[in-house]
């Protein structure tokens, strides 16, 4: 065995090299650079004048009203989207799980928004939600309600984005819930039937506990991806009105890419990256304890 060991080392590294070079270039180096730039006043157009300014950027970040606002917005988004999207997905899965003619049609219908890209759903809903001539407001007027300023009102815009995002994502999670439901052995339900449980008890004491690993997995992935929200507000509202749909990732993108303030934007990257890192770490600990 020993004589081929050295050879194995070399070959193993060769097989790893392409992946690690690419990960290094586009993940490790950028992450490290972000930490370094965060302590400088790097402005993209004058890279030569880059100076080390200590913690100044970070102090600025926590005083920046738009960044604070973006954190609040993303919290609202996260808190709303988890119960809505996951709840709808579970509800749909339970409905579909019942033996019924035409279920394939319903399944395809609920899943269909998943097939659209985020750019497509954003542009599409922009037209549907048009304040004066959009389909939704025409519908509201037809049934005797007032037209709503869905995307142009600071009080409604973020919730509109929650709705659109949940509408798209629920179908995919429904499929995962459905797979979880179908993995529950039928004899558990039969045993329940003998014990005389009603439908509500069946759901609460049999389905829910057995579905817990699936639910946790779905909630975690929803949580992590919700934090990275950018495309929907970018296309539908440009972060407005009055920054009510500005998200941290979008604000980082604007300061770094549009305003070219790489140093300041890096400080926000690091701050927000640490926040997401903590959330990811905590969830991995929790989910390990639950052994899923």
């Amino acid at each position, binding site marked *: 065995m020993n004589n081929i060991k050295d050879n194995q080392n070399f070959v193993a590294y060769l097989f790893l090299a392409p992946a690690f070079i690419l990960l290094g270039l586009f993940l490790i180096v950028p992450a490290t650079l972000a930490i370094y730039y965060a302590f400088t006043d790097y402005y993209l157009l004058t890279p030569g004048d880059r100076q080390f300014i200590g913690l100044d950027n970070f102090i600025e970040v926590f005083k920046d009203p738009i960044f604070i606002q973006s954190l609040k917005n993303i919290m609202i988004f996260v808190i709303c989207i988890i119960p809505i999207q996951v709840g709808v997905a579970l509800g749909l899965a339970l409905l579909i799980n019942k033996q019924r003619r035409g279920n394939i049609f319903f399944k395809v219908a*609920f899943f269909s928004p998943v*097939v659209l890209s985020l750019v497509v759903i954003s542009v599409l809903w922009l037209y549907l939600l048009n304040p004066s001539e959009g389909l939704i407001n025409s519908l509201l007027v037809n049934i005797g309600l007032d037209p709503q300023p869905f995307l142009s009102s600071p009080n409604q815009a973020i919730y509109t984005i929650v709705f659109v995002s949940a509408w798209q*994502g629920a179908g995919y999670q429904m499929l995962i819930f459905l797979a979880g439901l179908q993995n529950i052995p039928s004899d558990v339900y039969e045993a329940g039937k003998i014990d005389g449980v009603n439908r509500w008890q069946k759901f609460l004491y049999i389905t829910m506990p057995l579905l817990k690993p699936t639910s946790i997995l779905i909630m975690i992935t929803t949580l992590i991806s919700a934090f990275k929200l950018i495309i929907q507000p970018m296309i539908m509202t440009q972060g407005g009105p009055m920054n009510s749909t500005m998200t941290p990732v979008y604000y980082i993108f604007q300061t770094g890419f549009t305003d070219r303030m790489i140093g300041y934007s890096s400080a926000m990257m690091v701050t927000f990256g640490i926040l997401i890192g903590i959330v990811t770490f905590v969830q991995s600990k929790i989910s390990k304890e639950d052994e899923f």
Partner: protein
Amino acid sequence: MNKKFKKTIEYLFMLFLACIFIFPLIWMIVSSMKPEGEIYVDMGGIQALLPSMDPSHWFETYQELFSRFNIIQYLFNSVFYAVMITAGSIVVNAMAGYSFAKFEFKGKKILFGLLIALLIVPAETILITQFTVAHSLGILNTRLAVILPLIANMFFIYLFRNFFKAVPDEIIESVKLDGANYWTIFWKIMLPMSKPAIATVGTLTFILSWNDYLWPLMVLTDTDKLPLQVAITNINTTEPVFTNQVMAILTLSTIPLIIVYVVAQKYLLQGMGGSGTGIK
């Protein structure tokens, strides 16, 4: 009788739910199949969800769209990026996964630990410094800049590793006795055996790259290199904007995904977590 009534109510409820999910899609497709003016005339009624009464209008919008914009070029770009990224992703991640699964080498634990740790780095938050790296590499505004960052993926390496781990060592040993080297073992034995993993990684990568928007938007300035997703937002802001043409490009950019979802549906659930959680 009562039972029948209950069943009807249930079906009506299901239909109502289905409508909430599909009416935007239907509106998108039918609006691309009628003249601009008709869209707004129809808006108040059920006619909004039906294509133009005159079938000669159905594909007119598409003709106008193709003559106004270089749609063929955008379509080609998107397909090119998706195919290159998908092929690259399968080869590169499978190689790394194979190495972790079947080789004993110095630093294996450390490198694998690094890989797992990288899963925590939220790629969306380091877009700006990824851009400065692409700038230093001198690849801005090249097709390479769109392709390279999407190829290596920790999650897919992990997926391949688990798959290869399940392949018995005896198979490799016996081929080795026949004189095959590591490279041939990988290409001739391991890769062909891992078709389910390839299908899963391939499907997810294709969808991921087809839908990629921010990164191409950042690194590309030439319009003739743009993928469809970026072209959509351009078409949506190039005056004059016609609603029916916008809906036509949205429909066009969705068709390839429908095909992928139909063909590869069974591999999508296996790759949970990669994409499609709705928010990404």
